[in-house]
């Protein structure tokens, strides 16, 4: 068998399998972000409820819901992080356990309440302390954990909705990203043009659904 046949055979058999999987996946995947209103506590899979409450409170301050519209809460960034910690971000699971516990301990020590129960300005005080790296109780230090959460919150707010974040495309709409287009015209690239925002995941395009199969295998 030549290499070319080998490659073709590989694809054909997978395509058949794919058709069956996609019928299910296509209905399941979008549903995960359409139902953005679901209580996050009900759907966390990796974090404990105490960890989830602290994380939700942090992401809500990093990218707040305000006069400029929805933030990380509506994007379901904490939900994205929770899912990813059981998957691609699994190596960070320990850092979250230790870090979130340290945030809460810091809040109780300095403000006499769990982080999630503090007023927004008090939460911001604590986050600024963490960012500066001067706070004790974190390994190796608080700024490392702050940067980790900030990085993942940005991912969860601006990623493809396939991953459970950027729910209802609130992240892309915030920064004016006009969305995934398979063909882009010269007009789309002119100064002063604002291409009409498209709200589609990469995996809403049938040509890329193979990846869904791999992920679910």
């Amino acid at each position, binding site marked *: 068998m030549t290499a070319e046949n080998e490659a073709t055979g590989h694809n054909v058999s997978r395509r058949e399998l794919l058709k069956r999987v996609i019928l299910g996946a296509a209905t399941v995947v979008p549903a995960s972000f359409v139902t953005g209103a679901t209580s996050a506590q009900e759907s966390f899979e990796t974090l404990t409820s105490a960890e989830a409450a602290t994380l939700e409170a942090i992401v809500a301050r990093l990218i707040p819901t305000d006069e400029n519209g929805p933030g990380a809460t509506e994007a379901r960034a904490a939900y994205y992080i929770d899912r990813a910690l059981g998957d691609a971000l699994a190596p960070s699971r320990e850092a979250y356990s230790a870090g979130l516990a340290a945030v809460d301990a810091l809040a109780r020590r300095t403000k006499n309440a769990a982080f999630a129960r503090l007023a927004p300005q008090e939460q911001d005080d604590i986050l600024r302390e963490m960012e500066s790296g001067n706070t004790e109780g974190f390994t190796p230090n608080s700024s490392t954990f702050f940067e980790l959460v900030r990085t993942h919150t940005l991912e969860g707010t601006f990623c493809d909705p396939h991953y459970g974040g950027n729910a209802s495309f609130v992240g892309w709409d915030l920064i004016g990203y006009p969305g995934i287009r398979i063909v882009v015209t010269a007009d789309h690239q002119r*100064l002063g043009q604002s291409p009409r925002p498209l709200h589609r995941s990469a995996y809403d395009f049938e040509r*890329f659904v193979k990846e869904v199969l791999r992920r679910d295998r």
Partner: protein
Amino acid sequence: MTVRLEKTDVVIVGLGAVGGVAALPLTTAGLEVTALEAGTWLSRADFAPDELRNNVRGWPRSAQKANKEIPVHRPNASAPDSPRQSVHPMMNAVGGTSLHYWGLSFRLNPWDFKVASETRRRYGASRIPKGSTVEDWPFDLAELEPYYDHTEYALGISGQAGNIRGKIDARGNIFEGPRQRAYPMPPLRGTGFTDLMASAARRLDWHPFPGPAAVNSEPYENRAACVYHGFCSRGGCHVGAKSSTAVSTIPKAQATGHLNVVTEAHVIEISVNDDGGVNGVTYLKNGESYFQPAGVVLLATYTYENVRTLLLSKSKAYPNGLSNNHGQVGKHYLSHNTGAGVLALFPSSLNTWYGLPAQGIAVDNWADDNFDHADLDFIGGGNLWVYTERHPIAAAKMNTFGRAPRWGSRWKAFIKENADRWTGSYLQKTTFPYEENYLDLHPTVQDPLGFPVCRITADFKDNEKRAAAFIQDKMVQWFKEAGAIETVRQSIGTMGPTTHAYGGTRMGDNADTNVVDRWGFSHEAPNLGILGASVMGTSGAHNPTLTAQALAWRTAAHLIGNWRTISS
């Protein structure tokens, strides 16, 4: 127990950007070629426009041999190891990293082939950076031109010629050496942003030109034109418009009937005869061990793995590693000085969400020796490059130019307004080889098979730092002329694992200072050829891939013409 396979004429280790080019002339000449590739075939369905997967998480991760042997860096021989990267800069697949590279396909400029002699002639020997081991290439640009031409047409490169047989065309790069004919395709289209930058460069009396790209600007052969969808960087092409070897030279080589592609083949050793010639390659596939005998071995992995494979292939004839009896394997290493970029903030949207990094505007006025260095404190320079393609996570991670905090409501208001008003630049600057910069095997860090990984000992020296500062000045000037309201200079960083890694098996006539001869064959093991930027002794100011590909074609052509004397 190792399965001994039937002998083939040529075995190519690594069917990527360079192995995938060499396979075409070899098989067209009727030689039987077996290509051993650590990765698999990928199809268009693998190339989803997904920033998180491609750019943030370093797709593809699964079954990536490279990610299990990421080189470890330290800045110098007495410094501790730097934190290890989590993703290898290169990928394994048929077509290799040419599947997801930017595809910028510049030729080198004439000066890059004779940096040492030209610097001595124009400025005096004292101007060669202290500690540098730079040598002239064993030939000049004219010698490589026919192979650049073959490669550009076989792959499919779009671009605007600047010098056809000595006739200068100001629409292209006026500093390029003579080429025999135009590119096979016109350049990629411009955008509002690239037009803005080109106009500003002209006002400065510079010579902007659209960059040459391994991307179809119009249908080429049986492949579609680029659709500019904005996921080209670290993403494969879903319409087949990127001229990766996987869709150009490799299928053409397969059509000859002389190319046998073995995927998921993990090569662990090149074997030698008592006379010092090589006789084949041992590889692992699906838990089995195979020996593939061959008349000629072409090592075509990547700079780090080329060096590592040689150093791991020890024998009675080569106790310090294959082709290393002169102690030159791993020496003369350099990685392109591409840090020290410049970021710019503009007063209105640039509309660069779409496009691709190869859709841009270059300026070579400050590259190489295109300007007088008599009163400067460095040699060389850089290519200035601005381009399109912006992804949402990267846009949100933008530098705040000192105008906002890094989170909270004020930050959110800032990125809402400015996510599409900033841009970066890609500044490729001259890097010299130095005695102190080299590759070897790490004493303790191993891959899952227990083999040591490659260790990089390298850092930028004064010449590189001064060239970088000078080029940043020029880039700031260009952005300001185009209307930027803020600029930020990024740090030069250090020389960790990169996609632009050169040397380690340098090419030259002198066997005491070079691993391969002027044709790319080992000075010590005459039927071992080495392909890739690991044979290049200078970086120039342009992306390495096209030059490495032209050199691979030239090595293959030399092998075809001298088959009886080289093969065993």
